[in-house]
């Protein structure tokens, strides 16, 4: 993913509206899309571009709310239990920690990564990208962070965790009193916010503004004869 510095830099095309579908590689020109519309690949129907009204400001507002909820999710208990006169409760991190203590190191690391670290990275990367792009000349690190967001998104599994918590809650409630913790509601809110962010965020808008990693390459563009061929 990041270890590309050994390779030679490609020459960009002059026409920035030309894209290839990530799923079928069909070369095509992005149509003029109005805010609220989506451009799809004519061959395999993959969404190529969601253009959204005021995308970056709205995403920033949702991301600030998500950062706040993410913080809450990780400090307050997820589930509490009272049985036989004893009470216990656990946070997300506490769950991973206990697996680790039982010798399940790999599974504990996976739970920690997918339920704590990846969501936190996803939200903080997005926050930094959205704040960085607000300066006059967004620096190249904005692009570096943006490039790694899909990876954090892939492994961030809050919605799956929420379902897991609900199943565990149902299971345990058969023989003990389970108290849903505040974190359950916070995760629920966070799942909704992250889904909304995914609908509203338009990375193309950031890419158009960001400083190129290879500033020189921006000006030496390749010829346009391939555009003619593509039509």
């Amino acid at each position, binding site marked *: 993913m990041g270890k590309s*510095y050994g390779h030679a830099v490609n020459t960009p095309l002059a026409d*920035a509206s030309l894209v290839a579908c990530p799923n079928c590689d069909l*070369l095509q020109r992005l149509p003029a899309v109005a805010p609220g519309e989506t451009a799809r690949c004519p061959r*395999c129907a993959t969404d190529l571009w969601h253009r959204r009204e005021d995308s970056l400001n709205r995403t920033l507002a949702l991301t600030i709310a998500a950062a706040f909820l993410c913080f809450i999710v990780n400090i307050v208990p997820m589930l509490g*239990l009272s049985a036989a006169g004893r009470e216990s409760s656990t946070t997300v991190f506490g769950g991973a920690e206990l697996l680790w203590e039982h010798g399940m190191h790999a599974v504990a690391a996976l739970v920690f990564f997918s339920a704590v670290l990846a969501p936190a990275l996803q939200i903080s990367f997005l926050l930094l990208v959205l704040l960085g792009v607000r300066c006059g000349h967004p620096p190249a690190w904005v692009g570096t962070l943006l490039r790694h967001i899909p990876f954090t998104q892939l492994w961030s599994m809050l919605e799956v965790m929420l379902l897991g918590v609900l*199943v565990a809650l149902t299971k345990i409630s058969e023989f003990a009193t389970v108290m849903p913790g505040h974190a359950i509601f916070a995760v629920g809110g966070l799942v909704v916010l992250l889904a909304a962010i995914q609908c509203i965020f338009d990375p193309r808008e950031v890419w158009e503004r960001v400083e190129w990693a290879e500033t020189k390459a921006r000006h030496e563009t390749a010829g346009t004869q391939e555009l003619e061929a593509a039509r």
Partner: protein
Amino acid sequence: MNARGVTAMQLGLQCCEACGLVSRPAPGLEEGRCPRCAGHLIFRKKHSLQRTMAYLIAAAVCYVPANLLPVMTTITVSGRESDTIMQGVVRLWSPTGWPLSLIVLVASIMIPSAKIAALVYLVFSVRRGSAQTPGQRVLLFRIVRGIGRWSMVDVFVATFTVALIQLQPFMAVEPSPGLFFFAAVVVLTMLAVETFDPRLIWDPVSSKEVHHV
């Protein structure tokens, strides 16, 4: 724009997966670097089919102990009791709890096996150079990529059950070895999806179209 077209690779162009910029690699080179975001560029993922197949074989091997070994052990005063994933599903089945039981059954047992089967089919169809129903096969790939993560649900169920039920000496729940293999199946199938390059599905179709033109 019609469905008959040219792919970026046929014109010697690469489209950055991260930022979408189309660029031309230096003459004679297969790999390059995106000038805008410095991401790694390559026409098609390297050894995509072999690597996907390797992850799938590893996942299929782990799938057996994941289903046969217990994932959780309940220790009570009267003794120890171990549950496999399937026993967990059965235990959850009740007049009120059956929808959740069904979700776990689908997420933990049906999705991983369907995912392995679907990817094996995709790998073989690409290896055969099939040009049949590419649209449906890409759709299948996208569904597999979208639902695969839900298999993790049992790992989280076990995590929270173990974390909560620590009422020694009355009752305690411990994670059991099956959980490791189960988590391994989920991770390995996700890696198999990530190494598979869906553009390979369309390549035989694209080259046919060019020959006809």
